[in-house]
């Protein structure tokens, strides 16, 4: 599997560290309550198919949102997390 870092280009996925589902970008307010935080930290849609997840590109330090398919491992798009969040 190869991933495209928006900064460095097409790279081997060995260069990346996986964080998890991109829901990690939608951090609830500190006082949002137990259910919101449980949902954010633990509960997952865990899709069998298209997903968005967060990878860290170790050499350049960029957080990257990767759109890929969990069944075929096909990567359909990558973007910097800072831009994807907007």
């Amino acid at each position, binding site marked *: *599997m190869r991933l495209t870092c928006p900064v460095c280009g097409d790279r081997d*996925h*060995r260069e990346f560290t*996986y*964080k*998890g*589902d991109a829901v990690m970008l939608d951090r609830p307010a500190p006082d949002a309550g*137990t*259910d919101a935080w*449980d*949902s954010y*930290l*633990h*509960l*997952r*849609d*865990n*899709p*069998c198919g298209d*997903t968005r*997840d967060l*990878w860290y590109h170790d050499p350049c330090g960029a957080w990257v949102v990767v759109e890929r398919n*969990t*069944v*075929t*491992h096909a990567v359909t798009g990558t973007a910097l997390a800072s831009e994807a969040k907007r």
Partner: protein
Amino acid sequence: MRYSGLQVLKEGLFGQKGWKPVWRDPAPKSEYDIIIIGGGGHGLSTAYYLAKEHGLTNIAVLEKGYLGGGNVGRNTTIVRANYFLPGNSEFYSHSLKLWETLEQDLNYNVMHSQRGLINLFHSDGQRDAFVRRGNAMINQGDDAELLDRAGVRKHLPYLDFDNIRFPVYGGLLHRRGGTARHDAVAWGYARGADQRGVDLIQNCEVTGIDIENGKVRGVQTTRGAIRAKKVAIVTAGRSGQVAALAGMRLPIESHILQAFVTEGLKPVIDHVVSFGMGHFYISQSDKGGLVFGGDLDFYSSYASRGNLPMKEHVMDAAMTLMPIIGKAKVLRSWGGIMDMTPDGSPIIDKTDTEGLFVDCGWCYGGFKAVPGSGFSLAHLIATGNHHAPAARYRLDRFRTGYGIMDEEGKGSQHNLH
């Protein structure tokens, strides 16, 4: 039909013509008392123990493919009880005790072989950790022996003891650990459940879970609607998809775990051996193939196959620990889909929907848990109370933060286990 040595002899003399199909192939009825979704090891053992321990037989096991076609047929077949934390320790201890009488109980040869498990250590700090783990195992009533270097050499003369980077300091021997024939475990439980009247329904995918006023009423399937008073989701590897049918999200991410098998060789690896400084563990099947595996690929996936970096790591580790393996040819590799929970421990619990149960989150340890998981889930379904050895496998432990079982001491969040 009861299996025996005499039966084998008799059939051998008469051309093997007397064997009967091992289970029926019934059409689904319109209603059952209990529906188990998932005809894998855990689902089949749950049905078996519901029938055997609780006398409940109006049960259907619904399987979307064929019985035992999921992770129970795709693992590295290791059976052990060497856990450390309260919760896991008593559960796997109970499960191992069930394994030890399983063949007599099922009248089925699951080829359970207590050949001994040796976890190697390669530093003083690691030795301390294994001493601590061994003491926890002994306190639980299981067996553990600390082997020094000479002790390991007696068992495993083929290791590279003086490896310049990772010399072998010793190992923790768990004599009751070993392996079993994975498919036979599913078949044995299927046969036992079928004999007691459980309907095993294959090619029957659940497409909906009917819930009214907070109570489960039954399921929709590709073979029609089936009503039931109680429904258990026992579909590790696909737990998220099935739970979504009941409107639930689970604390689970699915990851790949790869395994490998070589061509058949003469007996060389007599034990189950795990490397302490890389992700590599190995045993030899009765057919002769070296069966070995490593760690997760570490990204969510349902692909049933992995990528090259973990393959390379496993091969590197194998060559570091036992250079003799370089002569063996890898025949095939595959990936299992693991239900990974944030703390790396499983879930056997009720849900917020009355009559709906989940048994999931087995991470990379589901095979050895097959008897214990079925036994404990059957107890929960039949009595409404948690079975003591599995009482800590609560679904809400992540939300409340109470009762987290982080065996590896890494932290309770996704992608750490």
